């Protein structure tokens, strides 16, 4: 329990204690981990000096290989090597089919809506595959920073929906990481740039990665990054450029659609390297292994490549226009455009984006690393290494949130581009006598028909008091937290009875499934779970003790009377006593006791901070 720090900006409460935290960019093609060290944010390399970790996971009978080595074998072992898993994260089996008919995996068909990929090491979900990438980055960070991480900030595309965000958070849980925040990638890039430039104004962040596209329009004002609007396509990126090139090669070389997995992987690899060559060269030579001892040789010109991908690039500009309109701005009102993501290296992208915004786009920070760097800065603030008052990120919900109503229509509850956190209440009633349960279908998207929006979850409200039809007034509150994640609460208004909400995610895993994965996870099986649990409790207890002491030193005597002060101190001493022991339960119990004893103090401190922020501003000043 960290009580609010009322220290002045720049003054850390305990400067000697640097907490370890990292920012993770979990990318479609590559992933990175970054951290702030001696006041400077940078990405962390692996043992061989590589910063980029290819987001490739290969399953072998007795283990998992992640990164470069797995990537090198993708062509040889296509069915057990998962690439671009981010495209599958938070998606259903049906979605996956529409993502491209040529995904080179064997999907296991089953009742569960989460796709499972069949490998030699068993069936795996995209959440588990992503967790392997996170674990690898975590190990790298702990090794270079020399200790266990207290928390991480993981970036997600701004246009990720609730299911995709939840799946990302689930992956972190399976990897045993504590998530301080899910941060939108463009916002993260803006943080990295904002700190370098320190320029107040309105900026556009154009982020075209391997599999996702985001555009965010944001205003920077004295350290506050306020996202005005965001748009994009969570299934459009450099992979799609590769696919178009691969299809073109197939046409040219007379390779038919029935080509095997290994052939498809080779084609994608060749297409990708041709695309990369064309960033600087005018022509890319091609030599494709046909697998039967023969090779097809040809070439792709930059002009030819641009003809293939122009429609896709123009599609991103449609999103840009919509984001501008949502922000109520014209292109010329944007001060500058920052390019993020490896796919912005394509010259045509730079040209068309520059044309659209009527300015030369900025790409000074390595577009591959900028997102991770911003996340590291935010992680450093959130973990408490800075008093944090100097920076604040205000983000928005990317897609409207609605519920299903009569006739398969969607009623919007929270429109897109509303600043989060946000909550909206809606009242429902029962339509049968004695009805004690009710289901609410929550969707995300802009269209009017349920079938055109994305189903997030079915919420079942149970424990509604039995009344006559129409008698119950059930107030359902939908909230979206700072991570962009949905929460639902329900209460019957006349009786005040709280209904229990059972979530049935449309494309997610249940808590039970995640816990099972956590147990099955190789890393955890080897460790003594009991010892790990105790250590975690002790860390939590120490954090609580330290924060409370700092708070008491600061304003305990101002905000508390003698009796109150003593009561809190008494509970604090008890926690210090039990935290040295080995009774997990007792430590947890005493943390709870202490928190309860401090509740009113916490409220007083929050009030004091609001008063302080508004000091000098009162209505009278203006009369």
């Amino acid at each position, binding site marked *: *329990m*960290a*009580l*609010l720090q009322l220290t002045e900006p720049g003054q850390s409460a305990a400067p000697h204690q640097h907490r370890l935290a990292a920012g993770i960019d979990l990318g479609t093609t590559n992933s990175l981990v970054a951290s702030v060290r001696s006041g400077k944010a940078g990405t962390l390399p692996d043992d061989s000096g590589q910063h980029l970790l290819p987001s490739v996971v290969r399953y072998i009978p007795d283990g998992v290989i992640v990164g470069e080595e797995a990537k090198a074998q993708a062509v040889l072992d296509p069915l057990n090597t998962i690439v671009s898993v981010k495209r599958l994260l938070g998606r259903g089996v049906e979605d996956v089919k529409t993502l491209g008919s040529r995904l080179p995996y064997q999907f296991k068909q089953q009742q569960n809506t989460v796709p499972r990929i069949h490998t030699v090491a068993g069936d795996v979900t995209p959440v588990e595959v992503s967790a392997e990438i996170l674990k690898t980055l975590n190990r790298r960070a702990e090794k270079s920073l020399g200790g266990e991480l207290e*928390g991480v900030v993981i970036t997600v595309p701004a246009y990720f929906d609730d299911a995709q965000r939840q799946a990302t958070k689930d992956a972190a849980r399976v990897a045993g990481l504590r998530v*301080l*925040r899910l941060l939108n990638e463009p916002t993260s890039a803006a943080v990295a740039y904002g700190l370098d430039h320190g320029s107040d104004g309105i900026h556009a962040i154009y982020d075209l990665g391997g599999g996702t596209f985001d555009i965010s329009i944001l205003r920077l*004002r*004295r350290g*506050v990054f*306020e996202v005005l609007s965001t748009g994009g396509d969570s299934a459009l990126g450099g992979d799609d450029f590769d696919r178009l090139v691969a299809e073109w090669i197939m046409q040219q070389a007379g390779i038919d659609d029935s080509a095997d997995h290994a052939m498809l992987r080779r084609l994608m690899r060749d297409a990708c390297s041709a695309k990369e060559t064309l960033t600087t060269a005018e022509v890319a030579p091609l030599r494709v292994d046909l697998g039967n001892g023969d090779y097809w040789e040809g070439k792709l010109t930059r002009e030819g490549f641009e003809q293939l991908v122009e429609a896709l690039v*123009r*599609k991103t500009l*449609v999103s840009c*226009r*919509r984001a501008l*309109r949502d922000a109520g701005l014209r292109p010329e009102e944007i001060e500058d455009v920052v390019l993020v993501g490896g796919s912005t290296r394509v010259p045509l992208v730079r040209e068309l984006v520059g044309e659209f915004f009527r300015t030369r786009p900025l790409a000074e920070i390595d577009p591959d690393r900028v997102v991770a760097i911003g996340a590291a800065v935010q992680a450093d*603030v*959130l*973990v*408490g290494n800075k008093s*944090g*008052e100097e920076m*604040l*990120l*205000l983000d928005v919900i990317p897609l409207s949130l609605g519920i299903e109503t009569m006739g398969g229509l969607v009623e919007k509850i929270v429109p897109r581009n*509303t*600043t*989060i*956190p*946000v*909550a909206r209440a809606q009242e429902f009633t029962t339509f049968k006598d004695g009805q004690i349960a009710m289901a609410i279908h929550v969707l995300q998207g*802009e269209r009017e028909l349920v079938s055109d929006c994305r189903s997030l979850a079915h919420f079942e409200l149970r424990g509604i008091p039995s009344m006559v039809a129409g008698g119950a007034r059930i107030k359902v509150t939908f*909230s979206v*937290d*700072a991570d962009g994640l949905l929460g639902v609460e329900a209460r019957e208004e006349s009786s005040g009875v709280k209904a229990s909400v059972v979530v049935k995610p449309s494309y997610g895993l249940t808590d039970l499934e995640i816990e099972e994965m956590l147990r099955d996870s190789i890393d955890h099986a080897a460790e003594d779970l009991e010892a790990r649990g105790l250590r975690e409790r002790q860390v939590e207890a120490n*954090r*609580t003790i330290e*924060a409370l002491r700092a708070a008491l030193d600061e304003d305990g005597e101002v905000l508390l009377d003698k009796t109150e002060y003593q009561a809190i101190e008494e509970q604090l001493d008890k926690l210090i006593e039990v935290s040295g022991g080995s009774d997990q339960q007792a430590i947890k119990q005493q943390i709870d006791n202490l*928190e309860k004893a*401090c*509740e009113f103090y*916490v*409220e007083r401190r*929050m*009030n004091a*901070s*609001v008063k*302080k*922020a*508004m000091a000098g*501003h*009162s*209505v009278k*000043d*203006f*009369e």
Partner: protein
Amino acid sequence: MLDFSKNHFELFGLPSSYVIDANQLAERYLELQRVMHPDRYAKGSAQERRLSMQGSIRINEAYETLKDPIHRARYLLSLKGIDMDLQKETTQDAAFLMEQLELREQLAEAPNRPDPYGFISTLMADINRRITSLVGQMAVQFETATPEQLEAAREILRKMQFLQKLRYQAESLESELDEAL
């Protein structure tokens, strides 16, 4: 923890008036979010996180209401005891309704124009001009806010509502065009 009994204006320490200094409002908003946003309590107790989320939601809601001239008018009327049922209330001003009909017809024609985007954008600029003009009229009513003026404000709000809906339809039509691309 925020004092939830305060109204939106009080929360920001601003006078309850229709004419509002947008910069000042934004400043106050940021000052409050700086201390209340959940990111300030990322390491906090469950209680702190809950309270800061509630507070932050409240600040966002107040800001959304006050910064938009149509929401602000409706809110200010409700503070003066006039709660409108916008589903049912509609203006009876015949000349205004005729104009609306014409605008709506123009919008329906947009997809058949040679440059539908340009046409919609001109139409939207026209709608925005009309809203701005109503905002000016609204400000006059709230200056002294006599009962008669509040009734007049209510009538202006009904018209604003019309235009807002039309603007929304224009945006939807533009999105439909986008999707057809």
